[in-house]
């Protein structure tokens, strides 16, 4: 790997640290540290207004062929007699691709050149199992048997002692593989109620908190660590919950009854609160379209587009430091099945939005003619780790990406500034 990234890390940290001290941000860390000991000494390095990556997982295997439609391919229309989308319905079509018509809410961002669609992306080898493909995608280090996810390696590479707020899953209390590993991470539904018992009575809360700390520190093991992390989180969350739950900003409307919208609203609040988060993982379920692809993909794309449009508005001035990337475990089969749906396939489309993105369609397009397919499906010509590397290099220049994605062949497509 290129050595260019290796020299800048220390200097970057130092300069940022002094910047923060100058901004007076060390005081909050001081309070937290005096209560809970060494766990939180890294607070000061975390508090910042640095760049943020939001990884949006479209769980179930999104149909990239419906989202970024290869309208010039006869094979696409021949394979999907009831579910293909006509060229004249597509948005922003060029000679090869066009967006699904339900992406309209992202129109303004597209026209400003802030949305990139990248096609024929995926795992290096086909894996049509939801669970294995997701695990492989999020671990992203086939050479190692340790279950350490790429986002965990990313935040480990950005700070000597990563902070509990560096990487988070929002919208689910279950930690995804991408976040698993040695760096502390948080998975939470939202930021309300992340407090110690009796938090409204500081004296009692301190007594109870100290006793729990003593017991869990003595317990060790999985439960001991869980208890200590919980205490650390409560100490930090108390200081920020107000500012996180302020939103959304005036005039911003997330779709009603949308779980993705609720998670992105919390994410926007968290980012605006400037607590130093570097990576947020958000899950959006409901993309496993074995039946009725037509109206289902319509609904899921519409929800996705409206949520993302609201999210970037809700970020306000902080939008300039936030990049979103969508990932899904696999694409769908080219040929539609017996239920007007599509079964598990291979190559897929990825979308990158926001800060640093150079909008448009990108692909080393393999074509869909029969000789170019892999077991009947769209081939993969760009390793998804190469797409992520391109984003990380542009947005986190201090990071040694070869440690996040060991041993990959990097082939940038030029969709980042």
């Amino acid at each position, binding site marked *: 790997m290129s050595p260019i990234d290796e020299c800048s890390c220390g200097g970057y940290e130092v300069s940022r640290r002094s910047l923060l001290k100058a901004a007076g941000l060390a005081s909050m860390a001081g309070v937290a540290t005096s209560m809970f000991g060494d766990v939180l000494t890294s607070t000061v390095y975390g508090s910042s207004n640095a760049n943020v990556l939001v990884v949006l997982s479209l769980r179930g295997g999104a149909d990239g062929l419906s989202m970024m439609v290869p309208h010039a391919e006869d094979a696409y229309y021949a394979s999907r007699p009831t579910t293909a989308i006509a060229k004249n319905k597509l948005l922003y079509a060029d000679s090869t691709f066009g967006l699904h018509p339900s992406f309209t809410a992202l129109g303004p961002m597209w026209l400003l050149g802030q949305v990139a669609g990248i096609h024929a992306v995926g795992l290096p080898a086909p894996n049509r199992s939801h669970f294995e493909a997701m695990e492989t995608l999020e671990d992203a280090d086939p050479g190692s048997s340790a279950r350490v996810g790429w986002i965990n390696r990313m935040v480990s590479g950005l700070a000597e002692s990563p902070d509990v707020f560096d990487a988070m899953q929002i919208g689910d209390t279950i930690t995804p593989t991408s976040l698993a590993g040695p760096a502390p991470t948080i998975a939470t539904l939202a930021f309300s109620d992340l407090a110690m018992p009796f938090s409204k009575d500081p004296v009692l809360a301190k007594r109870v908190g100290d006793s729990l700390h003593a017991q869990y520190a003595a317990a060790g093991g999985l439960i001991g660590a869980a208890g200590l992390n919980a205490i650390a989180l409560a100490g930090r969350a108390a200081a920020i919950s107000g500012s996180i739950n302020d939103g959304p900003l005036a005039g911003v409307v997330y779709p009603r009854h949308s779980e993705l919208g609720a998670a992105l609203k919390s994410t926007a609040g968290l980012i605006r609160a400037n607590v130093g988060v570097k990576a947020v993982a958000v899950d959006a379920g409901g993309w496993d379209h074995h039946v009725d692809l037509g109206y289902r993909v319509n609904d899921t794309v519409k929800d996705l587009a409206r949520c993302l449009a609201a999210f970037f508005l809700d970020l306000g001035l902080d939008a300039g430091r936030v990049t979103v990337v969508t990932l899904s475990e696999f694409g769908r089969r080219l040929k539609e099945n017996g239920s007007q*749906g599509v079964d598990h396939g291979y190559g897929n489309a990825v979308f990158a939005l926001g800060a640093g993105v150079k909008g448009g369609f990108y692909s080393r397009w393999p074509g869909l003619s029969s000789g170019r397919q892999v077991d009947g499906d769209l081939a993969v010509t760009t390793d998804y780790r190469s797409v992520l590397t391109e984003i990380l290099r542009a947005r986190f220049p201090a990071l040694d990406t070869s440690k996040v994605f060991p041993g990959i062949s990097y082939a940038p497509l030029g969709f980042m500034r």
Partner: protein
Amino acid sequence: MSTRMSAAVKPVVLPSKWQHTANRFSYGVSESLAADVRAKGSGDNWLKWQFNWTKVSDTRAQGVIAWYPRLKDSPSAAWSRVKSQERSAWDYGFDFACYSMARKILGRRQVHEVMVDFWSNLLYIPMGEDRSFPWRYSYDAMIRLRALSSYRSLLRGTIVHPAMSGWLNNSSNTKSGINENLGRELLELYTVGRPSGYDEDDVKNSARLLTGFSVRVFEDFAASYSTKDHYRGRVRILGFTHANSSSDGRAAVNAYLDYLARHPSTARRIARRLCVRFVSDTPSSSLVSAVAKTYLKSDTDIRATLWTIARHPEFIAAQRKKVRTPVEDVVNSARVLGMGPTGSSNEESFAEKVIWMCNNMGQNPYTWPRPDGFPETSSTWTSPARVLRSWDMHYNLAGNWWGSKEVTLPAKEDQLPTMWPCTLGQLVDHQSRMLVGRTASLPLRAAVAAALNLPETHVVTSAAKVTDWGWVVIRGAVLNTPEGMLR
């Protein structure tokens, strides 16, 4: 019930080995469960007694279905109510989740209840899902009948059940249009798993063989076998082959399911998952092999397989190593605190509130969105947010601060020592024995003393002198110990 455990300054705790067996194979060692174990003379004897579940009287849990009459709607009746917007699929799902939780809390057939949950999580179908909801209760009833029989029987019952056909789209898998969804997950999730090395042709053949199980989804949800939709012709799937020449493929499907249930890769996969549920997140290969061996030798007999686990030294050595899932946590807390639902009239009912308690901690029952079921590993359930919310919830439950109605709340006097005076430290120990089945550690005694701002030696002269506040602080603190979070 015999003499109350609490009728002494120091309730006798079960021997740790008995407590361990009861902890792992139940949703919480309540007073009455501890009495059952004691009456049977050991944890192993209790387990064997529980294996014969139909012989264990269980009137309270069996009465729960009467609270949810709509669950017994025929699929077509359920669908008409949804079509007329009288109820929604979610309403049916919510009823089902409440029903299931109430049975976990109240049931005396605890081993059976735990196994119903284990299989329901492996052969998982969520609550209130559009294409399966009218059949979800029937699916559960079938799992209940077979939960302690054989895996072969369970597999035959579940895979072709109309609820499964709807959920994994087998209802629209026909010879003229194959849908691979169920055919793939049958191999990957329910039987041999990926290490067995099946390929995409095996997946396609698996799906072809499963054609014919029709459900008229969104019409009247009637289920039938449709010979005209069944794909005919030889299939090969791993080492299984069948001429499949009849238009009624059900005999061939049964042969295929039996082949899969008896496959060594299935044995290993089921054995491992059982070990992760009942022993530890990282069961040794020798334990898994021993369990898989019994599974195969007994022709997939579930009781024989569980017995091998319960007798294994690795099981015996794994005391208090598994973290309770949020659902297990809420059910355990209710059981040991003596709280039980008595009806389910409205949203104030305890039977409904327990769902939101679980949800608050990050595990809403039967709402996992994917077919692989909630993770069985403890490490999944140790996020800081979950732990914080559990700590808070234990106090809420101990004080019934959510104001649940239709719930048994034992009188304080009935759960306190009968011999007075005793010290605060002794009271904490008493509750630790009752709720967690072990003596109170020194840090726990100190924790309660600090919270109440009293010395441990503080003397309490009668049950009446224990304030409601002090009572909640003691019981919440006991449930919040590391041991209280573990089973």
